[in-house]
């Protein structure tokens, strides 16, 4: 049996390079240092892909599907999706690799691929995975746009501890979970 999930995981999604300086660098902190120190600096995310995951979920829940323009300059990460969440050597953190499956399920749900055609062989695996990644990038982009707007609106919003949590919780307005 073939495994689309395994194939998808080997990819590295991209984002609009503009956001590198405005969002990724200030809000996430690549490199060493204890988790506590990073938090104190207002950097809630240990690295870039964490921030990307956040943007993805935000865009997903707020239904902000904003595909990347072909001409736009793109940036990416050092780690493929399959490494996201592996925290075995970080103090104070827990492994969250299971979230990969959920992201995969989300992009499967939201992408228009004729999976039967894929199974019949008329669509290549690469083509399918490409589309899945595009979906991921679109929602992430949507999330990034929302965050960027919020930062413009109130530059100090993200310094408080529950800022990012609140943003996710607010998205309930669109999704009636309960």
């Amino acid at each position, binding site marked *: 049996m*073939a495994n689309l999930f395994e194939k998808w995981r080997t990819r590295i999604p991209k984002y609009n390079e503009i956001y590198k300086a405005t969002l990724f660098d200030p809000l996430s902190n690549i490199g060493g240092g204890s988790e506590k120190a990073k938090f104190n600096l207002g950097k809630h995310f240990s690295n870039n892909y964490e921030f990307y995951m956040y943007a993805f*979920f935000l865009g997903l829940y707020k239904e902000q599907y904003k595909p990347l323009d072909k001409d736009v300059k793109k940036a990416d990460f050092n780690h493929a999706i399959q490494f996201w969440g592996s925290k075995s050597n970080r103090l104070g953190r827990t492994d969250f690799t299971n979230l990969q499956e959920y992201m995969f399920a989300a992009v499967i749900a939201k992408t228009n691929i004729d999976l039967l055609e894929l*199974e019949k062989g008329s669509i290549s695996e690469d083509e399918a995975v490409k589309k899945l990644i595009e979906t991921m990038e679109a929602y992430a982009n949507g999330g990034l746009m929302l965050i960027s707007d919020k930062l413009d609106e109130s530059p100090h919003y993200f310094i408080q501890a529950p800022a*990012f949590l609140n943003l996710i919780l607010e998205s309930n307005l669109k999704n009636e979970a309960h």
Partner: protein
Amino acid sequence: MIIKELIISNYQCYYDDKKFEFTRGSNIILGKNGGGKTKFYEAIEWLFSSNNRDIDELISKKKLNLASPNDPFKVGVEITFEQGEILNTVKKYFTVQKKTDKNFTTTNVVYEGIREYENGERDTMDGAALLKDIFPAKNKLYCMFKGESDLNILKNNDALVNLINLYSKVKHFGPYAEKGRVFREYADKAIEEAAKKDKKIEKRYKELDFEINNLQGKLNDKQIFLQTKYKEKRTLEENIQGVEKHLDNAEAVETIKTRIKDIDEKKKRLENSIDENYTTALFDKNWFLIYFENIQKEFSDKVVALSNERRKQQREFDREVGIKEGEKRATVALFRNVVPLPNDIPSRAIMEEMLSDEICKVCNREAKIGSDPYNFMLQRLNEYILTQKPVLEEEEEGDKIELFKNNYTSRLVNLEAAIDNDLIKVRSIYQTIKDQLEFNQERKNEIDELDRKKDKEIEDLENIIGSSELGQDSLAHTFKNSKGWQRDLTAVNIKIEEYEKSVSEMRKELSPKKDEKEALDSKSVSTYLTQTRKILRDIETIFEETKENKYDEFVKQLQKTANDYLKKINVGSFTGYIEIERRVFNKEQIVEVNLMQDGEIFYHPNTSLQTSMHLAILFAISEMTKIEREECYPLIFDAPTSSFDPIKRKHFFEVLGDCNEQTILLTKDFTDRSENTPGLLYSEEFVNIKRNKAILIRLEEPFDDEILSTINTQVINL
């Protein structure tokens, strides 16, 4: 004896001759600071002293300025004493001759004495000798007092003896007691010599002698230790009493500090319990999935539809192929030809389990071996197993055409099942987040409450420290010290008990030995000697006891009289008394003066109380001197009442007149002129103050502080 007159001539701020006339009773000299009071006192001191150095400093600058050259003038002090009908005048002076404005010469200091009898006859005498005769130098200690600290005359151990020697008949008993002792010692020695000559008892005598000396030595040492311990005990008691008023505050401060420490600890615990790593929790605690249920439904629907459609297409495909190739590919069909489940669901293990138990565990129907349900399940399982076998090349019959080249669906279905299983976890995330936020908020509220409590405690702490004379560190110190002193006091008391017991035991041990020695004496030595010794012993005892009794009487009388004065000065306020204790130690007379209240020593009286105590003693001495010597000396005070409040002052001046034949007192009190009575040169309060004579001294105006030649003190009789 009183001072009738005092003339100060060109002495410092006193330009030309300034005369002071005094009477019996109390004479009060009022003067503001810098007006000449201290110089007045110093002039008298100079007169009585034999110090004749630096006389140039004493010359009145104004006189030096205004004097014409070659016109000599005198600088000095003249005092006239009245003793009965006789007037004794002593002059001490030197002559100054101005040469130029900067140049002058001085002669040596000279004394002149004049005695004037009642009939008007005058005799000139050696001034220095006359002064020595009528006012011996030692008198100064008991007659002249500068400020309040001079008043404590009994603070030296030899003060009492000096006092007695100066003023009391009791001094005559001293030498007798001494003589008595000397004679008795002669007798002792004689007996010892005689006893030693007796060979029979010589050995035992020597032994006893040795033992007695040894013991006596140890006893003396022990008594010295004991005295040291008594002193220690007093110091500790004094210290403890000294901080007693602060102790309550010190304790309160410690209590509050402990409470604040508790609060801080609680706060720390609460702060540690708060977890605000919300963003991290999105990842580590999967809080991202809070709203995933809808997405999961979409995914689930899609995958289920996919799986269904796949199986449907597969079945149709298989059926077409089967029609072409016969029943080879025929698979087991379901009722109503509905689309079968994927052949790996349920899994092989589950299928085998159901077959083994002969029951369908999904619909709970029997499937006994050989029955239709059993066979259906068995065939299904076998078909699955077939698909798992690797296909061998020989089995291939021509080109097999497969509808589906890949099977992604299977894995997707697994994933769907797995996620579905975790749905319960996903559903609980909302509550988890809510609980965490609430928990954190409650802890924050508790912390705020603790902060409010802490602020209140700090406020209380500051109030206590503010109202106490000691700062926070001193109070902490006090608390610590006080505990230490209490411990030490307990230890010292134990030691004292031990030593006292030891001393008593040693005495008990010593006593029989002395008796034995005496017994030997009386056995071997002639009765004449022993009887003589007995008599001399008795005489010694009589003299000694008489002297001690007289001393005691003196001290008792002093104490009683002092307490009478103390009551008068402190009318209506302090209710305590003076206790003067005398004892002999190491042949020294030790005198302790204590202020007592409620039967206990009052260690830290305020200045005003202390001063009134010392004044009371002084007045008592003065009164007793009057009685004993039938002679009296004037008391001269410079500012003894600066610590007294107006009421105490008033009483003091009442007493002043009664206590002595003559007192002269300098003070800056009462010099503030009242606005209501501009004609009055002094304050209204002074109008009601009892006195026999009042004099005001002040600087003549205009004057310039910087220019000494403008300084001149006026003397005004009031």
